[in-house]
């Protein structure tokens, strides 16, 4: 009898870790996509991207504070929809402006020049975050009740918030995949990423395509901000660093520049992180990076990273 019980609870635990890992992974995926798309198109590791995500969280927090959160559930739902719409717009506008004002004039400068600019932008964003919300942690008001959707006696944990996270992230990522695969602008993005000079010879305005990439990457980070504040209702000015690093790691793990790779890498990191946190929260980060290092030893370009060389 005891062994059956053990097997049973192990199974429940395993499913819970996976479900949590999956929603965490989807969150990282939204941020990782912004890293990987920008890297793919301008070969810039946009160090400020994690901090853009942080600013998105602050923006959502300000919106909710301004609305002085009503307690009625329909009011909260409307507010949720409002921040889900406005936060991505906010992040997209910032990301677009930063590219336009700071990165574009340095497009033909050495890549290190661009990288240092991005680090500078990262610090500027963190300082803005400090001015915006102060140095302390801020509590994000609960918009959605954290109710478990699965029967309590099953021991399984899947909350209303998890359901919202999945129903926001999955369609977003499917939409992105369809956009990049099928629309003219999406195809132009892939063309510019693969050979910017040839893309110009096709009559593609590469600056416009790059701007669009920053817009989309920013909007995805904004969706990530909303998902984050729903899942983990504590924010501060430094949160962009660690979350950004996980997302960047996801992108590298999946193969930087590769869009499905970023999602795959993020899910893997989410799973490992979830497993690590269950075992001992202090080891979660170590475990994540150990796995990264091991995988990169065997697949230096990342899981889906390719080095398709042009034949001469």
């Amino acid at each position, binding site marked *: 009898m005891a062994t059956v019980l053990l097997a049973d609870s192990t199974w429940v635990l395993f499913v819970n870790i996976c479900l949590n890992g999956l929603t965490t992974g989807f969150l990282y995926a939204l941020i990782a996509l912004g890293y990987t798309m920008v890297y793919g198109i301008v070969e810039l590791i946009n160090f400020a991207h994690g901090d853009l995500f942080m600013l998105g969280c602050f923006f959502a927090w300000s919106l909710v504070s301004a609305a002085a959160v009503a307690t009625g559930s329909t009011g909260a739902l409307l507010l949720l929809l409002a921040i889900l719409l406005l936060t991505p717009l906010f992040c997209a506008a910032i990301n677009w402006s930063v590219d336009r004002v700071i990165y574009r004039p340095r497009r033909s400068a050495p890549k290190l020049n661009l990288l240092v600019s991005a680090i500078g932008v990262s610090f500027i964003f963190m300082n803005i975050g400090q001015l915006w919300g102060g140095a302390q942690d801020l509590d994000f008001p609960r918009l959605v009740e954290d109710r478990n959707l699965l029967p309590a006696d099953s021991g399984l944990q899947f909350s209303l918030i998890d359901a919202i996270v999945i129903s926001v992230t999955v369609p977003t990522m499917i939409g992105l995949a369809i956009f990049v695969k099928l629309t003219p602008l999406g195809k132009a993005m892939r*063309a510019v990423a*693969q*050979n910017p000079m*040839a893309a110009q010879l*096709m*009559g593609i305005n590469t600056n416009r395509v790059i701007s669009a990439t920053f817009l989309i990457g920013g909007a995805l980070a904004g969706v990530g901000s909303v998902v984050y504040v729903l899942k983990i209702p504590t924010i501060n000015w430094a949160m962009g660093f660690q979350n950004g690093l996980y997302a960047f790691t996801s992108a590298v793990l999946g193969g930087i520049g590769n869009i499905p790779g970023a999602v795959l890498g993020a899910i893997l990191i989410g799973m490992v992180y979830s497993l690590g946190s269950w075992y001992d929260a202090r080891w979660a980060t170590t475990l994540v990076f150990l796995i990264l290092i091991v995988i990169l030893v065997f697949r230096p370009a990342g899981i889906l990273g390719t080095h*398709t060389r042009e034949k*001469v």
Partner: protein
Amino acid sequence: MALLEVQQLRAGYGPIEVLKGISLQVDKGEIVAIIGANGAGKTTTLMTLSGIVPVRGGSILFDGQDITRLPAYQIVSRGLAQSPEGRKIFPRLTVLENLEMGAFTRNDPQGVQADIEKAYHYFPILKQRAKQAGGTLSGGEQQMLAIARALMSRPKLLLLDEPSLGLAPMIVLKIFEVIRELNRDGVAVLLVEQNARMALKLAHRGYVLETGSITMSDRAETMLNDPRVKAAYLGE
């Protein structure tokens, strides 16, 4: 009548001046060849015409309009397309997507569809490879794709940079045959080649480019028999 008229064109990279004031002309319906040694500035010439390398002086008139300062992405829609040196295929786009990219500036889907069929008519192998990634094609197939892709914008003038480079003689013959065919269909061609003999046999007129200056221009037949050209470029 001149389709392309280049006057005293200067261009370069940083401190290096590569084109030192070249003038040339391509008429409607013509095939014109630029021959010259490695490093003479042939690729730079074509890249300047396409707006990739900035103009430092002189002027480019195309189809009666001044395109000297136009950005690259506006030049294609005027009717000037290029198949660049080294093909520059999009390696992870399919052959069909590569062709679609060539038609990026157009917004007549039916016309584009018809032109894809036309590209398959010129190069039947591309139809078989339509769903394959561009990077998986052989060198010859990539060259065919690069030319077909450039044709997808329906250019009045096609710039071709070293279409024979690194290809087996059979494939070069096939490609040159297609160039002749599409010229008969009304496309003017400016051809850059190190294989001077083949280029001059195909072309109506030719220019010799030496370290950034045009040193000779004549009818192609005449150039093929010119002792200086023979000695320097035909290995005779």
